[in-house]
């Protein structure tokens, strides 16, 4: 009950010195706003990074060849040269039945020439039929590359939606042919299909892409026969550990050592990035926190002045029966009211700042409940921490000395 009374007294005395109250609240507002804005920035960056990782699809494992320094005088093919070829895809699928499919990762650049004389820069992806499943990238019209295309090294192409639109506009591209310069080779490709729009736009995917049978590239010497990277997908996320172990086991037995390859799951990349991003977020919040600390010191300063100014009031109140706890709470609540009010306004200001920054720079600021809760807790803690000393000073005043104070 007397706490509510003390709260009233605090509000009243804060109301009496509006400018001073405003300025000390402002310190906290700036501190909290910067913490909120910084955390929003951190969360925004985290989300962006994680989104671009997960755009690769879920339950994905990447197998890469790791090149070691060649031993002097030995130029003959090593075990790794023999293992990392197109055949590895099929062998891996055989060895680890949980895999939906294994696709080689072969990419290069190409220039496409149109009859009109225009040209278009694009990425060329050496694909196998499993690509669609592994990358969860569905076909729109026509067909994707099939086993026959692979077996016969056919010069057929599937276009990404963007490429198809740019090249052919509204005309049906199926059956049309394109002249393409891939590396130093000039080839004529027949369009057999068009991909749909990829569900998530990912930074790892150029929007202008064409897909050709991987053998069309390797057999013509456009791409190396040695394939250094494969992407694979497995059924269920519970199998991650098991599949990783099986892949490691198989490759180690084939290569004779575990030094020449790496097996990385999407999940582990995600976790690492998450950790990094979270560290960055806290670091940014820490920088914002410095402002909060300064604001807190401002409150303490004001409270100390206020205690001195009101020494006589404290003396009078004590002579009328105020206990230490009454005086203590009166001043502590003042500090708390200042800091919590600053915290609440600061959350709004931080959100506004985040929204504004989202418009100015390209990173989205994400205003989170977590940041809000932290801000409220922090501003209250600041009020408590910086309010206790002045309040204690007030409560400990000797009534006679306080009464005599001029």
């Amino acid at each position, binding site marked *: 009950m007397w706490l509510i009374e003390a709260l009233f007294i605090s509000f009243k005395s804060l109301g009496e010195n509006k400018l001073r109250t405003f300025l000390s609240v402002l310190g906290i507002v700036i501190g909290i706003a910067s913490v909120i804005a910084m955390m929003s920035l951190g969360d925004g960056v985290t989300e962006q990074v994680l989104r671009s990782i997960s755009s690769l699809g879920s339950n994905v494992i990447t197998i890469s060849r790791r090149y070691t320094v060649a031993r002097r005088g030995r130029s003959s093919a090593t075990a790794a040269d023999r293992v990392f070829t197109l055949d590895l895809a099929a062998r891996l699928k055989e060895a680890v039945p949980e895999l939906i499919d294994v696709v080689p990762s072969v990419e290069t650049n190409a220039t496409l020439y149109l009859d009109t004389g225009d040209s278009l820069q694009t990425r060329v992806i050496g694909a196998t039929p499993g690509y669609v499943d592994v990358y969860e990238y569905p076909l729109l019209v026509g067909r994707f590359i099939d086993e026959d295309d692979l077996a016969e090294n056919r010069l057929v192409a599937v276009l990404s939606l963007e490429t198809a639109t740019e090249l052919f506009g509204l005309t049906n591209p199926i059956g049309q042919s394109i002249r393409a310069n891939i590396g130093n080779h000039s080839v004529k490709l027949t369009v057999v299909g068009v991909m749909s729009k990829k569900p998530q736009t990912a930074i790892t995917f150029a929007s202008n892409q064409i897909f050709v049978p991987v053998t069309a590239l390797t057999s013509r010497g456009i791409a190396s026969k040695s394939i250094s990277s494969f992407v694979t997908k497995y059924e269920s996320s519970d199998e991650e550990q098991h599949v990783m172990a099986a892949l490691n086991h198989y490759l180690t037995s084939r290569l004779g050592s575990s030094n020449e390859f790496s097996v990385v799951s999407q999940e582990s990349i995600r976790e690492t990035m998450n950790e990094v991003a979270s560290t960055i977020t806290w670091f940014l919040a820490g920088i914002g926190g410095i402002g909060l600390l300064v604001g807190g010191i401002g409150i303490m300063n004001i409270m100390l002045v206020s205690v001195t100014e009101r020494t006589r009031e404290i003396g009078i109140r004590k*002579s009328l*029966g105020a206990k230490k706890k009454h005086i203590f709470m009166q001043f502590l609540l003042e500090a708390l009211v200042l800091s919590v009010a600053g915290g609440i306004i600061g959350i709004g200001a931080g959100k506004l700042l985040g929204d504004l920054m989202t418009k100015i720079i390209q990173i989205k600021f994400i205003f989170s409940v977590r940041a809000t809760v932290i801000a409220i807790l922090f501003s209250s803690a600041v009020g408590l921490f910086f309010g206790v000393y002045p309040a204690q000073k007030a409560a400990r005043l000797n009534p006679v000395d306080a009464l005599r104070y001029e």
Partner: protein
Amino acid sequence: MSTQTAIEVRDVVRVYKLGRVEVAALKGVSFKVHKGEMLAIMGSSGSGKSTLMHIMGCLDEPTSGSIAIDGRDVKQFSDSALAELRNTKIGFVFQSFNLLPRLNILQNVEVPLQYRGVSRKARRKLAEEALAAVGLSGRLKHLPSEISGGERQRVAIARALVNNPTIILADEPTGNLDSKTGTAIMDLFKDLNKKGHTIILVTHSREVAEYAQRIIHLKDGLIERVEEGGLGVVN
């Protein structure tokens, strides 16, 4: 005639340290304040009368000796118990009124009730009653700065009375007032005394002291003499 004791002051010594010098404001003072009496403590400035008042009001502690209020030695009281004692048993009236400048008259009188934990509604009623008892009924929402000195002292007296304390301690209650207003305030104390309040006046003025039934003369921290009987008849 058997009388109850409101305050017993026994061998009270109060020494202040001013840097390296020790100054004895009170050098061993003993007397009793009877319930229902009006007592004056008289002395020139530096006689120790203000120190004595602060000690009797439990705002200060004696260096040695003891104070008993309603028969209980206050030495054993905790800080919090002393605050309760000041709240419920003692009412202070100061020369400079000591009203809280930013609270209105009603709120000023409500402060002791607030610390006693009286509800909002009851507080309002008790404060109005106390103000009526000192002859104030209008302008209760005014600030202390908006009323006259005499009125301010009435507010202070109402505030001292509001918790119905055993003792009212008044330190030079007319010191800041003109003689006409001062007389009115003293008449008010006399009335309150007639209604049964124990009143202790601390003053350097013979005129004010004349209102009391007993005058304790203080000089250099010691009781010089006590005038008794036949007083308290000033009209």
